[in-house]
């Protein structure tokens, strides 16, 4: 069939949709509601295209090609319509892409992520996240005014998260850690950068550039770096040894600092511009603005900055007894608190009231507590002295008038004055940069002078810090005027990015449009009702040294959080930023189409976030009604627990009857979270506070049943935090996983980590060394042994067991329950895809309950038009898909190309016998199990245990089945009723790099993402006992043997089925006895238990 796509005639296949064709041709068409497993829905309309002759647009996902169809996939009208569709969706998308704390931070530090990492105890990783944008957490964690906390939504519940303190905690932890976080240094690129000024901005710029491979030379006029952090912030807020260590860490990338080098003295800008590839000017704003008061030249009159600086340098002037500090900013407070520590009687004189003070409230309160007096609504108008030495200050009373431009009420003089006696007065009003040197010829570049504003600051582009002149960049206080350290750092980082791009590409970085959905512009605009569900948990206050000690020394006042305090405080975070903000399809289209969030502002549907399900968070505020969750739940999983409720604008996806998901028949398969194109349905983790940061993915197979689904194991800070279906390359299971596969690993919290010995009917943890001793003692007495395996373990473990059996001169044994009459006929040839028979048959007969993902796979086949018959199937959602339901196999109609499917652990042998008899050939029977490694178990050469009692028995994966005087079990878990004399922890499928052969020869590969050492410990036990040679106590050795096993099995030819054996088949079901089953069971029950957040 030929169609015309964008003016080009091309060949297309019957049954293809426009979207299929476009995908094939590499033409990008956005879509939100389409899912190739599902029938097209055509609801989102972002896939709108035009077809000649059709009125309006058509949905490309739902329009099948017809011969000669003329399709236009994009033009201005289509583009505008798609953009409008996105804008309409966004107008009712009550959600935050990024957490408000991150957006409030001038440096955009990913607060939510590092706070969550702290809550999870991952301090090192938290520091790594912080240092992505903020390389000075030790200092900033102590001095930052915390813009983030102002916007913290937790404030609506009670108080904001103590973000600054948490940052300090993580940084302190990392500092004491042997493995401090130091980024990888990129190879040198031969480019040289000069940075003028060693304050936070210059240091930051140099830090990032040096790790990127630049040769960075930082020139500092003083004899130490830190700028205002060193000379402005007093010791009691930021101990200078901490600052020193921070700067030391920052230099690990190779940044070279040259002290005593000042611009205008030792350095000329024209030289720097010529000799370096770029120059970053971060000279700060160090000149104090003098007090325009008569008598300010008297002795005893100081300026705030100069005072703090000389104090920092150990050249503190003698202030006398009574000291006045003029001003209301942080500098004034710092001067006052410093003077208090010098034993002075200190008063702050401020023109307005406490409410208008620009200093942080907690600083003001601390100053008051320490005994600083405040003269509000006062202004010094004249200093008088005796012998050129300050004696009295005439102070005028002020009153508040109309608000000025800054919104603060303007102080107005009243004419009333009073006189106070002071020995010295410190004016801390404001600072400006020193700009005089830039007018000199040697500091001009190409005859051009650096552009300077009338506030005596550098004029630069705010996104790149580029001055517009030659290769000169400038930032920090030098371009802002006196501001905070975090803002200076933000400038330094931006400058580093811009300089890197400028040098390497010759161009400044272009601003990329990134869409950000916001629930509100400001905290005040958020409706408090939404936060009523949260239980109040007050902010934890960081402890401080006693007041009397505080005011008499310069010791740091805040003493830091304990680990318990920090984790508890971090756990308070409400996780405002979207879990999937990096992968959200809606957000990426909104960025691509440069969507305006408020083009169609209007009413918004607000819904309480449903945190009641232990594994799934449902946030209808983010829902875009694409219905993918509804359709996948109803059409593939059969649970049908979601649907639309209400009509019109209020229509929304909700669980049946609008209840909590825990009250529905939800199977907790989590597929809804996988198909949701936004963050309306996301997974949660019982034991880990998840965050939006991209995680490290590892692809492997699931080891919880014989199907062996492909899974994506997501790691953060060396820990598994999420399991989902592979995003890029889904396996044969597609987007399907069952509860066990997706959430089952969360039961690993119950895993054993140390050997357990039974003493007086109780288990007691012992060291590995003691365990070896116990076994050794036992072995000395033992004359008969039994070495057993189970189908729950990897090939590697089976081979080790085999070796041990050989060493001990016994056969490898296993519990009789693992053997079935059909073992000989099964096709165990290892293969990458074992479910081919599903494709080769057009009628499926399922007998008894089946593995969940296999059910989904059958369902997907059935949707291609195949027939499904269920026999003796439990009353369970999948049952509704049956084309035919039977209670007895004998009622099955004859004929047809039937595939019989059953799970060996869920029906009786007698029933299975009937199936084999009907099928007549192993070509038409698909046997699955709940075992990890059924294939290898049957191929490794194992015999049933004997009835004779032995002295010593060891079993991999379970309690030995042999009767024995001493039983050793190797198992990851110890469920109830576990009876062994000694238990050794064993690896599970996420703890060993190994292989397994599942049902029908499915090859599963397991990784060890969290780098568990358990298998190494076990091998140490085995070689210490001389069961294996030391040379083989190495997993790769066994990996090779496992590969050999698979290679041998590839030549295996199954015995053709002819007739049932002449023996009585068991009438009871033999379920899997894997120790994890009990844990999975108790975890599965949780899906019906609402949780409180």
């Amino acid at each position, binding site marked *: 069939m030929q169609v015309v796509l964008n003016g080009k005639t091309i060949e297309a296949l019957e049954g293809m949709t426009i979207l299929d064709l476009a995908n094939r041709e590499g033409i990008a068409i956005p879509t939100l509601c389409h899912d190739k497993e599902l029938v*097209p*829905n*055509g*609801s*989102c*309309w*972002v896939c*709108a295209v035009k077809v000649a002759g059709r*009125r*309006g*647009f058509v*949905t490309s996902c*739902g*329009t*099948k090609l017809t011969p000669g169809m003329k399709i236009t996939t994009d033009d201005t009208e289509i583009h*505008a*319509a798609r953009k*409008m*569709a996105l804008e*309409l*969706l966004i*107008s*009712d998308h009550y959600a935050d892409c990024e957490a408000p704390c991150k957006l409030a931070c001038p440096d955009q530090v990913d607060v939510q992520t590092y706070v969550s990492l702290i809550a999870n105890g991952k301090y090192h990783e938290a520091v790594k996240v912080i240092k992505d944008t903020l390389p000075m957490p030790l200092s900033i964690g102590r001095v930052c005014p915390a813009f983030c906390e102002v916007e913290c939504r937790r404030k609506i519940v009670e108080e904001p998260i103590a973000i600054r303190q948490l940052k300090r905690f993580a940084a302190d932890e990392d500092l004491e850690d042997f493995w401090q976080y130091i980024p990888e240094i990129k190879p040198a690129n031969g480019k040289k950068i000069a940075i003028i000024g060693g304050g936070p901005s210059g240091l930051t710029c140099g830090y990032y550039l040096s790790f990127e491979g630049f040769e960075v030379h930082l020139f500092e006029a003083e004899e130490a770096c830190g700028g205002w952090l060193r000379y402005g912030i007093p010791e009691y807020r930021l101990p200078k040894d901490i600052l020193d260590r921070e700067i030391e860490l920052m230099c690990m990338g190779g940044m070279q600092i040259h002290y005593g080098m000042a611009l205008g003295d030792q350095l000329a800008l024209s030289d720097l511009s010529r000799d370096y590839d770029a120059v970053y000017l971060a000279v700060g704003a160090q000149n104090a603005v003098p007090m325009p008061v008569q008598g300010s030249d008297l002795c005893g009159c100081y300026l705030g900055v100069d005072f703090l600086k000389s104090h920092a340098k150990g050249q503190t002037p003698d202030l006398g007894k009574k000291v006045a500090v003029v001003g209301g900013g942080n500098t004034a407070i710092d001067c006052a608190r410093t003077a208090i520590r010098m034993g002075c009687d200190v008063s702050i004189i401020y023109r307005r009231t406490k409410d208008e003070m620009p200093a942080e409230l907690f600083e003001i309160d601390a100053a008051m507590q320490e005994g600083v007096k405040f003269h509000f609504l006062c202004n010094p108008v004249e200093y008088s002295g005796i012998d050129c030495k300050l004696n009295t200050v005439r102070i005028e009373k002020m009153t508040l008038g109309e608000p000025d431009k800054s919104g603060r009420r303007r102080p107005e003089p009243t004419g009333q004055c009073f006189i106070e006696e002071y020995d010295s007065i410190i004016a801390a009003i404001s600072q400006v940069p020193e700009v005089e040197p830039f007018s000199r010829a040697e500091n001009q570049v190409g005859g051009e002078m650096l552009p300077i504003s009338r506030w005596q600051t550098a004029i630069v582009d705010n996104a790149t810090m580029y001055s517009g002149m030659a290769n000169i960049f400038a930032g920090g206080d030098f371009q802002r005027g006196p501001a905070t350290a975090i803002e200076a750092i933000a400038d330094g980082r931006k400058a580093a990015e811009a300089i890197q791009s400028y040098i390497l590409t010759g161009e400044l970085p272009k601003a990329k449009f990134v869409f950000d959905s916001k629930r509100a512009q400001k905290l005040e605009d958020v409706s408090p009702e939404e936060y009523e569900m949260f239980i109040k948990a007050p902010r934890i206050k960081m402890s401080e040294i006693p007041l009397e000690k505080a005011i008499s020394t310069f010791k740091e006042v805040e003493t830091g959080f304990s680990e318990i305090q920090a984790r508890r405080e971090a756990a308070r975070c409400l996780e405002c930023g979207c879990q999937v903000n990096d992968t959200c399809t809606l957000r990426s289209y909104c960025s691509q189409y440069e969507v305006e969030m408020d083009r*169609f502002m*209007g*009413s918004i549907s607000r819904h309480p976030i449903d945190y009641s399900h232990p594994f799934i968070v449902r946030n209808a505020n983010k829902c*875009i*009604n694409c*219905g993918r969750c509804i359709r996948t739940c109803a059409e593939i999983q059969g649970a049908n627990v979601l*649907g*639309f409720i*209400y*009509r*019109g*604008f*209020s*229509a*929304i996806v909700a669980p049946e009857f609008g209840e909590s998901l825990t009250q529905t028949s939800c199977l907790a398969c989590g597929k809804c979270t996988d198909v949701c194109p936004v963050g309306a349905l996301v997974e949660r983790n019982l034991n880990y506070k998840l965050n939006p940061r991209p995680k490290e993915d590892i692809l492997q197979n699931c080891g919880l049943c014989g199907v062996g689904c492909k899974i994506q194991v997501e790691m953060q800070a060396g820990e598994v935090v999420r399991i989902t279906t592979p995003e890029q390359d889904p396996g044969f299971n597609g987007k399907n996983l069952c509860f066990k596969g997706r959430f089952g690993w969360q039961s690993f919290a119950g895993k054993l980590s140390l050997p357990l010995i039974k003493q007086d009917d109780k288990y007691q943890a012992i060291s590995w060394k003691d365990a070896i001793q116990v076994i050794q003692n036992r072995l000395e007495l033992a004359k008969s042994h039994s070495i057993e395996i189970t189908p729950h373990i990897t090939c590697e473990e089976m081979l080790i067991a085999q070796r041990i059996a050989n060493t001990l001169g016994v056969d490898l044994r296993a519990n009789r329950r693992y053997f079935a009459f059909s073992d000989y006929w099964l096709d165990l040839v290892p293969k990458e895809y074992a479910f081919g028979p599903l494709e080769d048959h057009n009628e499926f007969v399922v007998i008894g309950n089946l593995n969940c993902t296999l059910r989904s796979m059958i369902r997907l086949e059935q949707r291609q038009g195949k027939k499904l018959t269920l026999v003796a199937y439990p009353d369970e959602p999948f049952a509704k898909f049956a084309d035919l339901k039977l209670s007895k196999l004998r009622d099955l109609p004859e004929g047809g190309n039937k595939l019989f499917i059953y799970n060996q652990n869920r029906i009786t042998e007698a029933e299975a016998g009937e199936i084999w008899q009907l099928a007549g050939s192993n070509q038409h029977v698909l046997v699955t199990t709940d075992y990890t490694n059924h294939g290898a178990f049957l191929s490794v050469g194992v015999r049933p245990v004997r009835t004779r009692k032995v002295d010593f028995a060891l079993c991999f994966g379970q309690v030995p089945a042999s009767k024995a005087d001493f039983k050793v079990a190797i198992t990851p878990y110890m469920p109830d009723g576990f009876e062994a004399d000694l238990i050794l922890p064993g690896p599970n499928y996420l703890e060993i790099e190994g292989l397994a052969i599942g049902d029908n020869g499915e090859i599963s590969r397991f990784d060890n993402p969290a780098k568990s050492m358990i298998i190494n410990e076990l091998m140490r036990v085995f070689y210490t006992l001389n069961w294996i040679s030391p040379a083989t106590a190495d997993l790769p050795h066994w990996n090779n043997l496992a590969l050999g096993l698979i290679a041998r099995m590839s030549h295996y030819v199954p015995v053709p089925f002819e007739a049932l054996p002449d023996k009585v088949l068991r009438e009871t079901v033999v379920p899997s006895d894997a120790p994890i089953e009990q844990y999975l069971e108790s975890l599965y029950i949780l899906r019906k238990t609402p949780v409180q957040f």
Partner: protein
Amino acid sequence: MSKITVKVGVASCGVAAGAMEVFELLEQNRKTGAGFRLMRTACIGMCFEEPIVELSGGKLGNISLGKVLPEDILNNIEEYRQGKMPTANVILTEKHEGSRDSLLGEQTRIVLKNCGVIDPTSIDDYEAHGGYTALKKVMKMSPEKVIEIIKDSGLRGRGGAGFPTGLKWSFAAQAKGAKKYVICNADEGDPGAFMDRSTLEGDPHNVIEGMIIGAYAMGADEGYVYCRAEYPMAVKHLKLAIADAQRKGYLGRSILGTNFYFTLHIKEGAGAFVCGEETALIQSIEGKRGMPVIRPPFPAESGLWGCPTNINNVETWANITWIINHGAEEFKKIGTQESPGTKVFALAGKIAGSGLIEVPMGISLRDIIYKVGGGMKSEKPFKAVQMGGPSGGCIPASLLDTTVDYDSINATGAIMGSGGMVVMDSSTCMVDVARFFLNFTQNESCGKCTFCRIGTRRMLEILTRITKGQGAMEDIQKLRDLAANITKGSLCGLGQTAPNPVLTTLRYFEDEYLAHIQDKRCPAKVCAPLLKYEIIPDHCIGCTACARVCPVSCISGKVKEIHLINQDQCIHCGACYSACKFNAISKG
């Protein structure tokens, strides 16, 4: 002298006006030997005259009395028996052609031929009026022949879009499938429309017979009437009619002794407007939430439970028997060439004769309003007529000579629709009208398509802002942009047509929008926030009536002194305006 027959119209409209009281009174008297036959019938269409009683069998022939009162009716019957014209509100006499009874005189009745004439609960009465003769005729023809007749008749679907019915039938007939369905769409949902309800209440067998004929022609063996549950009398009459038809062998196995088999079910809809859309209707019958699905495939190919399905609305089905009985040629003589036959309209709004009418296609709007409908209700001039319900549009006075056929109506920007006709006079604000209809559609959107779900809501919000005087000039362009994409980017007719009321009012009454936006003024004096109430000093006598009713006490003034309205506090409720007996308050 033959016995007098008394027919009481006890359809929903009659019952609402008190017809049951009249009927029960007559029933008692008849039992006590009053000497007349008592019959129930349905609505004749003159809903504004209900309760209506028709008398026949006397010297005066058939006469109908309107607005009948229980206390008078026995006297009236007595007068009639004596050959005297009853001293009552006589609305129709036997010679209604060309008489004052123009309401019926201008009408041509095909669909409504039996409505208000027969007893809808009696299959015998239906048969006595020629019922089931068409079916008998059809059973002697081949199915192809039946489709050919319908094709020849030129009948177009009366649901609104006007798709040729014969063609639609032929698609379903040609579709492959062992099982086929026919469906009658009786999910009438337009505000102010009640054609289907009246038809089903008044003549259910006519619809059923049409469906049986259709099923025979298309090879269907099962049918559904999808009727909204808010129509209890229609459902009741349908149920009865189906049972009776089954009893008489018109439905069920071996219909009229042939091999033809057809069963009919009623599915009561829960009142979702969107379920009138055929794919949503099918979903609803299947037990799912009524949400439209992508077409193609069209229902004719894959409809109910994946089987070929034909859906026609009540009025379309009701035309079939007439066409079979009279032939395609006779049908084509009525109406226009492109739109043959008649159309039923529900007249509502500021019109004198509100009710149900059936007129030949090709009649002008002017004739419908001024001749059939009896003109405007008050002396206020005609301003516009809204056709096609919320999916339609407003046709202004300047286009009154537009003829009623599918293509001419579409050209105005409105649509024929199912037949709702809301007449407006100068006291109607067109922005407010657009807002009203849009409010309806946006509430009734199923919520599936982005443009329809959120876009109509945003349009409504803009219109609401405009009616509150908070509109901005760019809002007009925003409305047009939204309307364009909603029309082009919606799966079903609901979304595709939802912006029509806004688009047509913007087309014909843009000045009213501008007055609201630029002058902060509502020319029709409807939008309360834009109204200003002021005391006219010359008229005010200081009676205090206004001050006493003001809910916010913003009117000051002493007895016998001129009052004053404090404009800052006034909430524009209009209570003072209504209370003033001296026309001393101006509204503007």
